[in-house]
């Protein structure tokens, strides 16, 4: 069954597996109609809930398994393994003489830490499991020392003795000359059946041995689990009679087929957050907002991203936890500020919020599970931002416990009254997020006031208007289901891959030949993903710098070096405030961005409303005074319904706070659009 045929079938299914619930959305790609289902997650084998969800979705839509055209999935398997250091037991094979590449790292004490207190983080592979092979290639790619295969066999034996289930191979200069590395990987695969072997030149063919070794190791470490996981999902689908491709979200905001993911599972390190960003883009586009800043606030962290003209920018200098991971990923900033972030007063009398957070147990004090420390969520509860019951009545908040926690941990030590203390906690959390918004906007040459804010995640819509006020943003878009935006992202995503090649000498012939070679690689990938020619799209991008600089800027390739140099200089000036007229701009790396367009979503329009009617009122302590806020049920609002703050809009997965001075209107796309009133005080 080819994908061309599959794409013609009516149903798309998106599955998002969370810690507690697995959310499933099924959509009729012709009409845009969508149904959602929810089932408890099954952490011992997530594919169980996955399958239950698919069945529930097909039932809800009265669809048949044979009518499913694609199954889309965002996975946190790799992310969690990397963050928690729980990847497979792995070994690293490296060039003789460089066994301690990980222990040395970049030999620095990070700029922001105190050298007396800092402890070097434990490496993902200890030095006892780094094995050397005799070989050497020069920076220009010539073989200086031929590969000594006896040392490879010894390394394989050492891997076997150590009982590893994954091996990363990263040899010096393999990004220029991968032959030795490929041979080592081949020999190890033959000698170590069942062990996942990754070569650095297949994961990340770029200069800098420490970063490349790490990326290769992380890839190897998540490979067994991701591979098993993906295979199980495929088997489950097949058993259910679903013969559609399984597509997984990558960190770059595009999806790829299961085969590609199995080869390089580290590309899913930011799968979840990337899906959210793509979803936010789709929601905003449907409501007519191409320029947005997204703020995804969860329990422990917030992810912030900027899109101009609907374009999601990529970075290759990202981090996951303590580790640099220079794979293409959505250019977002993550900070330790979420609903569960703890507020405390330091010995010196400073109020600090996060990055420590209350774990799921006991959680914020207001959850009534014995927590006594104050969190951001407790501050919201103390001020009345959240109604006393959540999740459609399934959860009751312990308001006195929240107030007590804020009083004891913050108000009393600082000599503030309860409400001032709670507002202080929120002000600091908001300020931290504003700092991150500035990183993605002002630091990249954008004025945040030209953008709409899209807050999502369970805690996002509580902070949206406050953040907008601080940033001078006039419009806030709250997605239809802010807590489960990943599903929208999956349904809206295209297939995406990047191919790149470093150059030492950028003559017109070399550049043209380089792009042509990359286009061949892309064509092979399109074929593997079964993308019909009409849906293929490629973009040539040049990574450029002034000779001697350490970082490059990405410039769309205009077809010639002098035009590229001019475009680079203009971007350099816009970003950094200066350009160097006599400086030689260099073309360092060619990149080809390949997109296989999927049909994308059509949002079914929301039926017109019959006027917003509050279902009750709740007392909220705003800085400007205590007010009765109207309570609205999001599900009861129709297109065009509008009301003014102060108001609280409740729904199953999130709560939206509309402060005085803001007004809300339901857009036909389903987004709730909040706008600052012109003459608001």
């Amino acid at each position, binding site marked *: 069954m080819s994908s061309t045929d599959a794409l013609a079938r009516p149903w798309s299914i998106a599955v998002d597996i969370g810690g507690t619930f697995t959310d499933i959305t099924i959509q009729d790609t012709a009409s845009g109609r969508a149904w959602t289902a929810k089932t408890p997650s099954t952490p011992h084998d997530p594919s169980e809930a996955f399958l239950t969800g698919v069945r529930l979705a097909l039932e809800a839509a009265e669809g048949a398994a044979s009518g499913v055209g694609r199954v889309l999935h965002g996975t946190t398997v790799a992310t969690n393994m990397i963050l928690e250091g729980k990847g497979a037991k792995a070994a690293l094979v490296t060039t003789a003489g460089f066994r301690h590449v990980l222990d040395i790292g970049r030999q*620095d004490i990070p700029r922001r830490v105190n050298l007396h207190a800092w402890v070097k983080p434990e490496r993902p592979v200890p030095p006892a499991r780094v094995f050397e092979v005799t070989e050497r290639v020069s920076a220009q790619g010539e073989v200086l020392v031929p590969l000594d295969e006896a040392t490879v066999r010894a390394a394989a034996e050492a891997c076997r003795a150590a009982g590893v289930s994954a091996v990363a191979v990263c040899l010096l200069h393999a990004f220029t000359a991968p032959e030795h590395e490929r041979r080592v990987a081949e020999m190890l695969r033959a000698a170590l059946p069942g062990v996942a072997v990754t070569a650095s030149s297949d994961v990340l063919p770029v200069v800098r041995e420490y970063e490349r070794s790490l990326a290769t190791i992380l890839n190897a470490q998540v490979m067994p689990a991701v591979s098993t996981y993906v295979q199980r999902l495929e088997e489950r689908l097949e058993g259910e009679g679903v013969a559609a491709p399984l597509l997984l979200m990558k960190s770059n905001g595009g999806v790829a087929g299961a085969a590609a993911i199995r080869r390089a599972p580290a590309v899913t390190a930011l799968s979840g957050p990337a899906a959210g960003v793509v979803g936010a883009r789709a929601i905003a586009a449907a409501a007519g907002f191409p320029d947005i800043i997204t703020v995804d606030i969860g329990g422990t962290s917030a992810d912030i991203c900027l899109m101009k003209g609907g374009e999601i920018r990529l970075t290759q200098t990202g981090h996951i936890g303590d580790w640099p991971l220079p794979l293409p990923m959505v250019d977002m900033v993550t900070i330790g500020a979420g609903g569960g972030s703890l507020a405390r007063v330091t010995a*010196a009398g400073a109020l600090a919020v996060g990055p420590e957070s209350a774990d799921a147990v006991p959680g914020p004090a207001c959850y009534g599970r014995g927590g006594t420390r104050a969190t951001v969520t407790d501050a919201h509860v103390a001020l009345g931002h959240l109604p006393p019951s959540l999740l459609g009545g399934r959860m009751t908040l312990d308001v006195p416990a929240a107030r007590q926690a804020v009083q004891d941990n913050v108000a009393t030590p600082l000599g503030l009254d309860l409400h001032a203390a709670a507002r202080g906690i929120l002000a600091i959390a908001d300020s931290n997020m504003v700092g991150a918004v500035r990183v993605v906007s002002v630091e990249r040459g954008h004025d945040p006031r030209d953008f709409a804010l899209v807050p999502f995640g369970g805690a996002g819509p509580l902070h949206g208007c406050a953040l907008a006020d601080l940033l001078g943003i006039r419009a806030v878009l709250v997605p239809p289901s802010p807590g489960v935006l990943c599903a929208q992202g999956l349904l809206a995503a295209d297939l995406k891959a990047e191919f790149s090649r470093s150059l030492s000498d950028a003559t017109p012939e070399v550049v043209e030949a380089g792009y042509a070679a990359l286009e061949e690689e892309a064509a092979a990938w399109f074929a593997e993903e079964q993308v019909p020619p009409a849906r293929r799209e490629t973009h040539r991008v040049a990574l450029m710098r002034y000779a001697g600089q350490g970082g490059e800027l990405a410039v769309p390739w205009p077809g010639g070096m002098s035009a590229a140099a001019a475009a680079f200089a203009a971007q350099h000036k816009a970003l950094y405030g*200066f350009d160097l007229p006599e400086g030689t701009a260099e073309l360092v790396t060619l990149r080809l961005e390949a997109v296989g367009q999927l049909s994308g979503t059509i949002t079914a329009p929301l039926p017109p409303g019959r006027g917003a009617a509050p279902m009750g009122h709740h007392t909220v302590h705003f800085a400007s005074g205590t007010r009765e806020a109207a309570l609205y049920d999001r599900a009861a609002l129709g297109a065009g319904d509008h009301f003014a703050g102060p108001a609280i809009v409740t729904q199953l997965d999130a709560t939206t706070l509309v402060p005085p001075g803001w007004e809300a209107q339901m857009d036909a796309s389903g987004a709730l659009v909040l706008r600052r009133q012109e003459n608001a005080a």
Partner: protein
Amino acid sequence: MTDFAPPARLCDPVTLEIVRGAIRAAQAEMEALIERTAMSAFIREKKDFYTALFDAEGVMAVGSNVPVFGDICGPVFRKFAPDTMQPGDLYWYNDCYGSRGAVSHSNDQVFLAPVFHAGRRVAFVMGWAHFADIGGLRPGSISPDATDIFQEGIIVPPTKLIAAGTINEAALDIFYRNSRFPRAAQGDTRALMASVELGVARMAEIAGRFGAEVLADALRQLFERTRETVRERLKQTFPVGTWRFTDRIDGDGHGSGPLRIRFALTRTPDDRFILDATETDDQSVGPVNFLMNPDVPGMALGLYFLGGEAAQVVNAGGPRALDEVRLREGSLVQPRFPAALGMRGLTMMRVLAALNGLVSVAGGEAPAAHAAYVIMLLRGTAGGKPFLMSDGIGVGYGARAFADGIDAVYFVAQENYPVEFLEQEYPVRMRRYGIHADSGGPGRWRGGCGIVREYEVMAEEAVMAIRIDGVENPPWGAGGGMSGRPGRVTVNPGTPQERVLRPLSDGNRLVRGDILRIETGGGGGRGHPFDRPAEAVLADVLGGFVSMDAAARDYGVAVREGAVDAAATEGLRADRPAAKEFHRGSYAHVLD
């Protein structure tokens, strides 16, 4: 309480935290800009640059986590009265003696700009970076051969580089003309100027958002908070009396050494804290003199006392926690003009260790001594073109009372040149880059290990300068821990042509095919090595950090076939050597 009445607080604790966060964000933005746009490898790969923000009177309010800064603004103010400054001004200097050690070797360029809001001066912003070459005796400008500061490159006294937006291009032209690599100097200058300009814009926005009065109060509070914390910790650490500690560097490379740094910290009965460095040895001929600004000891002690608390800020509160710093002109830490200063990093790193020593002598548990980072400069011609490679190599840091010393690090925020980068850019090939086994001082907590970096010279011909210390006087251990093991530099090791280089020397000629092995020193250990868990010693053996012989000899742990031999270990550990407070080569109650 404080010895002055606290002023009314305009800035509440919440706003204070928000202002602090905003300033930190501005600082991060300035640093990112320098990193992305600077041209010399020294700045973009090695990242030898820092930023800081000051209040309207030039008092450092938010600095970097680097304890080596002096009073940055004073030298500019002495020549240009702050009240005459205008928006768009930028001031520049690298004059060590003219700044009383605010910068301590001439490669470091300071750019400082006032920030105005609504016509009023509200702050100052600084960007600082090490420039790869500013002229002088040899490429790289710092050389162990230098004997006066005029051999260490062009000296820039406090200069108004930009007057209300108008750049003094002539001054820059003279500066660039004095560099052997003018294009890099120009690129780095533009990057640093753009960064300071950005910082000025951000600080003006912060002043606009919170108001000049609130900002001023916030900066004052940040300063006070640090000062009070450091002062409180000083009182907890040092009982009334005088506490002394002496540390040494091996020598100046010109025949004198060891050279002693002698510190005495006195707490008077009325709680004045006086740091006296006057008994330090005389200044030297070679360039190891450290023109120590009086703010440095307080800055360094402050950094130690603030510890890992993220909300704390390193600033002038550290220096102001000390009541007096006594220095003797003509000493190693207060040399007379025009003594050479280029290699002062070596003495500076021992000064930091000596301050830790003072804390330890008084019964505190500061880290044991660290090795001083190692510098090599290789200059020559390759393919007919001149080149300069300045490589900084990491060392081991001192063990803490709660953790091992940090292995294989250079200093705060300074990164290495990746092997793949180095081989692309310079005529060298790397044969080995790894941990220097057994260099970490044995202890319950092991001192950090140094590095082995082995190069093959590919240039037709090159001249090398090397700076490595602690060869004769390795970093001391404390609380029963032993000293780190020294480094050394060898050419063509293991061959008939093997030669060991003088640890602080220049003019070392190398030719194509020569092998250069640099082994750097480790940090001191803390606590008795026999108290280190046998499993931790085993992991070190398996990881290549400690040899089997050293495990048995130093730790009393027998390792056989990849496992601890429990019976043999018990036997070895039954014969436990007696320890004393400090250790440098051998145990001693007092180091001298």
